[in-house]
């Protein structure tokens, strides 16, 4: 007569077979050793922190000058470098644009003549779904020069302006022209970037533009009248 032995014992119930006891012991021992090693490392760290030794040295002054045998020569060289740098330092009237704080400073040498609230690039990205082109709307950083000054400027809309609005890009230049959106004046700083006016004065002080620097009406008029062509503009 066949005896139904029933299903095999579940591996998850009942006492562990002897070989499993052994495996568990190895795992526990290994974990303990790893734990002790980590404690050791931590203690070594604390020791180093307390200055117990410079084996785990902190970084310091760097290599000492191997031979500063001719201090006079060094002094003369330092003076030469300092003069070189001083020559490069901006003098006269120049503009400094802080793109993060949205501020433009008119400076005359060391002296700040006027601070203006502006709007700089939004950092937005636009992709052309058809042409595969893309634009990042950042205000450029670095040194530029006021290359042109225009009264009652007309905006010649670039391709991205049409793509952004979901419109077809016109073929004729005159179809790109839009009056009255750049304010009364514009100062060109190269590569299609301008310091110009805005219809959205309530957004001054925020990063909302496509890369140009927008300025309020009164400040723009002041800049147009004060800043000559060739004035340096430092953007950061």
């Amino acid at each position, binding site marked *: 007569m066949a005896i139904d032995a029933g299903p095999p014992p579940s591996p998850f119930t009942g006492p562990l077979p002897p070989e499993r006891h052994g495996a568990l012991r190895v795992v526990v021992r290994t974990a303990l050793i790893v734990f002790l090693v980590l404690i050791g490392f931590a203690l*070594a760290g604390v020791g180093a922190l307390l200055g117990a030794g410079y084996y785990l040295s902190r970084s310091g002054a760097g290599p000492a000058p191997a031979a500063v045998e001719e201090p006079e020569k060094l002094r003369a060289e330092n003076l030469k470098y300092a003069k070189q740098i001083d020559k490069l330092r901006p003098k006269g009237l120049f503009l400094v644009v802080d793109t*993060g704080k949205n501020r433009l400073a008119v400076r005359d040498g060391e002296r700040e003549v006027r601070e203006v609230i502006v709007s700089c690039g*939004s950092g*937005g990205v636009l992709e052309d779904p058809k042409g595969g082109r893309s634009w990042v709307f950042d205000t450029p950083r*670095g040194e530029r020069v006021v290359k042109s000054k225009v009264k009652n400027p007309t905006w010649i809309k670039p391709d991205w302006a049409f793509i952004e609005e979901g419109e077809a890009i016109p073929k004729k230049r005159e179809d790109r022209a839009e009056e009255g959106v750049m304010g009364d004046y514009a100062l060109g700083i190269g590569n299609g970037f301008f310091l110009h006016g805005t219809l959205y004065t309530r957004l001054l002080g925020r990063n909302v533009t496509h890369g140009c620097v927008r300025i309020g009406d009164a400040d723009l008029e002041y800049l147009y009248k004060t800043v000559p062509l060739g004035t340096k503009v430092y953007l950061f």
Partner: protein
Amino acid sequence: MRRAAIPALLAVLVLGSLSPARSADDALSLWRENRRLAAESVLAATPKPYFELDLEHRSISLKTRGMVLFELPVQEQALWGRRLAVGPTSVVRRDALSRPAVAIGDEKNPATLDDQLLELADMPATYRLGLAGDVDVEILPVPTERWPVLFQKLGFGSWQLARRQLMRPLVTLRQRRERHETTAVFLVLKPEDARRLYWCLFEGLDGILIPPR
């Protein structure tokens, strides 16, 4: 006469013993200034802005053409690992746990104006800058939460910095074993300063590194 001569002799002896140390110090200062000026004269000749990480005077500044655009004070700092020298460097990497990005939105959830703009307030205050020459700079903000502030008020400094200081020797040990030692610089800044720095120190920007003496 004799009474007056003894203090004078002592003074001469003390000054004499100090002067070699002083002249060595002067020589070191001259050398460091020479390296800094040499690096700056190259950078100032270009139209790009550049930074100056001055760990001797605990400040970071952005400059262009030798002119300081802004200067940020370092609240706390710590250096570990390989020693550094005064000289040129550049930002090769800028890593943040969450990189600021513009939200475009869709038809159902159109992005608000704030979502579409990247502004100073959107910049991270905790991030890493990898500088040329195997220098890792970790920027940490001054704590604003209750317990870390208490920790700092008790005179222990920044909790985040202390935690990193405790772990860093292990990294040094590992690097020594692998024979590739780097330098770690931990800088604690005011959160708004940390964000401003992130805005300005982009990958590829050149600068000057001035380690402490």
